[in-house]
């Protein structure tokens, strides 16, 4: 837990010199406690106070970046237990396991699938984020060869090398020099050697413990050995244990600022049955995992997991929104239809997607309603006849179109008369209620 105002005050110079812009050191301390001021504003604070305050104000879950370049994944930085309190910060990474006992072809195939897994959903690019390369063979040469195969097929994808054998680790790490991989598999018996390899290769060290107690002890030792970037695994594999351990770890970090457990969690979810695996992964997504390791990445499963992760990690205060403007779909001509909707991302992407499906070039006027859906915006008084009329007039779309006709969502049919009154010379047409009826609607218009 962060320090209280009074605790912070005790560390300040107590001269009330006002250089920080606050009347007293105490007032400044109070602002610091509420995270509304920055310690830099006080020029006279001691080095020791800086250190203590810096540690206390660091996020309870350490920020760590896996991989390098465009596909690097940010982890940690979480501050709460429940998403309604504050946005969950860094969406958990989805990683697929590749065993070094597979044939080269099979490895290459999965690596390629990962490299091409990106899809777009409501404007976000989502993909399988990482590959876990597991040293099932127990053979260092095999792991190294596998690392080379994977690095060749998916060069930009961050990697997690999974082995308990320092010899094998050393060779595989070399393949990923400069790419900030994770070396997973440090335990009570190999910690020294693994920590040294991680340090030498600037890698993140993955701790594989047997229970939370041992985990906390191992992270302390790793830190003493000079490795600060860690991801942690308590050894939980059953859904019940994953939920319990992840909860206790996040609570310790967030509520007690217990540093030995203030690291991103890696959970291994692999199951024979792919659907069951996806459902166990739900526990990881909702309950605090930073990396989920799965055994397969079918497209249907990726889509469902990406979507869940997106849902859980959206900001509960601010709906996802798109910019207010008139969007062209296809290459509209003056006589192409003009639609209106709100700027809630989900609404925009569903409606524009269906218009695209219809293959009829169109204009879609998207009005800023603070990210609310059509009916919610209407009920909240943000999608009203006068606001719609004003938006259409100010957009200047009138100059681009042949007939002044505006198609409104079926759910707000009730607005059509009032919009016609406010937009003289315009014809208001009521569209279907559900967007998936738009292709049929457009077809009948053309015919």
């Amino acid at each position, binding site marked *: 837990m962060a320090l209280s105002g009074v605790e912070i005050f005790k560390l300040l110079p107590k001269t009330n010199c006002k250089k920080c812009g606050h009347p007293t050191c105490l007032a400044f301390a109070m602002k610091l406690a509420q995270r509304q001021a920055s310690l830099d504003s006080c020029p006279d604070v001691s080095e020791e106070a800086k250190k203590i305050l810096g540690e206390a104000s660091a996020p309870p879950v350490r920020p760590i970046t896996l991989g390098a370049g465009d596909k690097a994944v940010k982890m940690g930085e979480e501050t709460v237990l*429940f*998403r*309604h309190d504050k946005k969950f910060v860094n969406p958990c990474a989805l990683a697929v396991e590749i065993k070094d006992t597979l044939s080269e072809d099979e490895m290459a195939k999965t690596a390629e699938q990962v490299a091409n897994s990106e*899809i777009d*959903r409501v404007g976000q690019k989502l993909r399988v984020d990482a590959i876990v390369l597991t040293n099932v063979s127990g053979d260092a040469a095999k792991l190294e060869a596998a690392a080379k195969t994977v690095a060749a097929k998916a060069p930009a994808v961050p990697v997690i090398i999974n082995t308990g054998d320092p010899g094998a680790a050393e060779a595989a790490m070399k393949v990923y020099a400069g790419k900030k991989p994770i070396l997973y598999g440090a335990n009570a018996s190999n910690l020294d050697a693994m920590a040294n390899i991680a340090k030498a290769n600037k890698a993140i060290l993955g701790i594989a413990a047997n229970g*939370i*107690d041992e985990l*906390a002890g191992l992270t*302390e030792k790793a830190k003493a050995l000079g490795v600060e970037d860690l991801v942690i695994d308590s050894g939980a594999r*059953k*859904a*019940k244990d994953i*939920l*319990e351990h992840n*909860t*206790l770890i996040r*609570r*310790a970090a967030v*509520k*007690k600022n*217990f*540093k*030995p*457990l203030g690291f991103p969690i890696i959970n291994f979810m692999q199951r024979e*049955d792919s*659907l*069951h695996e*996806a*459902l*166990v992964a*739900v*526990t990881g*997504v*909702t*309950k605090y995992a930073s990396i989920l390791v799965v055994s397969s990445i*079918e*497209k*249907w*499963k*990726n*889509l*469902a*997991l990406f*979507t*869940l992760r*997106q*849902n*859980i990690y*959206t900001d*509960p205060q601010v709906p996802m929104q798109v910019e207010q403007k008139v969007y062209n779909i296809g290459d509209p001509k003056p006589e192409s239809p003009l639609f209106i909707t709100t700027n809630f991302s*989900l609404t925009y992407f*569903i409606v524009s997607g269906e218009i695209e499906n219809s293959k009829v070039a169109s204009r879609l006027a998207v009005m800023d309603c603070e990210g609310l859906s059509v009916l919610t915006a209407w009920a909240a008084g943000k999608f009203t006849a006068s606001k719609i009329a004003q938006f259409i007039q100010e957009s200047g779309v009138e100059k681009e179109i042949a007939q002044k006709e505006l198609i409104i969502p079926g759910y707000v049919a009730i607005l059509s008369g009032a919009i016609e009154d406010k937009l003289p010379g315009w014809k208001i047409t009521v569209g279907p209620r559900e967007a*998936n009826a738009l292709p049929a609607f457009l077809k009948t218009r053309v015919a």
Partner: protein
Amino acid sequence: MAFTPTKETYSGKVYPVTIGTGDAAVTFGGENVLPFHSFEGATPNSPVIACEIQDVPPADWPENVRKPFEAVSDDPVKWAKYCQDELKAKVIALRLIGTHPDRENRSPEDAAKTVKDVLDAINVPLIILGSNHPEKDSSVLVAAAEAAKDKNCVIGKAQEANYKTIAAAAMANNHKLIAMSELDINLSKQLNILITQMGFEKERLITDPMCSALGYGLEYTYSVMERIRLAALTQNDATMQPPMLGDVGMYVWKVKETQAPEADLPQWGATEERGIAWEAMTAAALLTAGAELLIMRHPKAIEAVQKTIEELI
């Protein structure tokens, strides 16, 4: 630094609710901790999944979820028996969708007869749902509640617009009642209060904060459920202590992801697996948020969620 787990003790508890009669009766709720937090308190009962059927053939269901019931879904009695005997459903949810004025517009008498016939054919507990037309539901559900008198069914859903008649019928005929409001913790609390003020026992209520599908507002349902559960446990708020319902199937099997052919959207993968996963993952997410009762459609989704519940308890 030694690790001492931060365990929470809560002042409140979720009511246990028992539905049905005799050996086949089922109890859910009853825990005094957050979902599946058995490491710090009591979780005496597992969440329960009800298998959804309806009074008219499911012409409106997408093909992949219609198919498993093709041989039986022309008749609600056959369909109910199939769910109980073949799929081993612990609870059946009969949706009287055919009573909706825009659909077959079946009469309350027809609905009551369907309820009676189904009850005669099964011994597992029955959830009786209207068509979600507030006006029509108030006559349909009254008739249905009478037809099911003393069978300890669940009647739903009572909403702000119609709760009086429906709650009265549930009370007079000894049933449990689903109180539904739309994704707002305060509205949900308010409705529970209004219903208990009529003399309806709060221990007989089930809260439905309204479901939404994965990708279509799931996060709203998820957080409303989490907040309701926290209010019940940490603030010991009795109006928030009934178990919660996730009416999953109906919301999931209308979204595009459960239907769009793979040929149109190759990057979305196999349609059938995708639909099943969509329903199962929506359900699993709501379980971690606090749902104790789920209404679902696809047998494979139900089976997979059941397996996951067993791994979580």
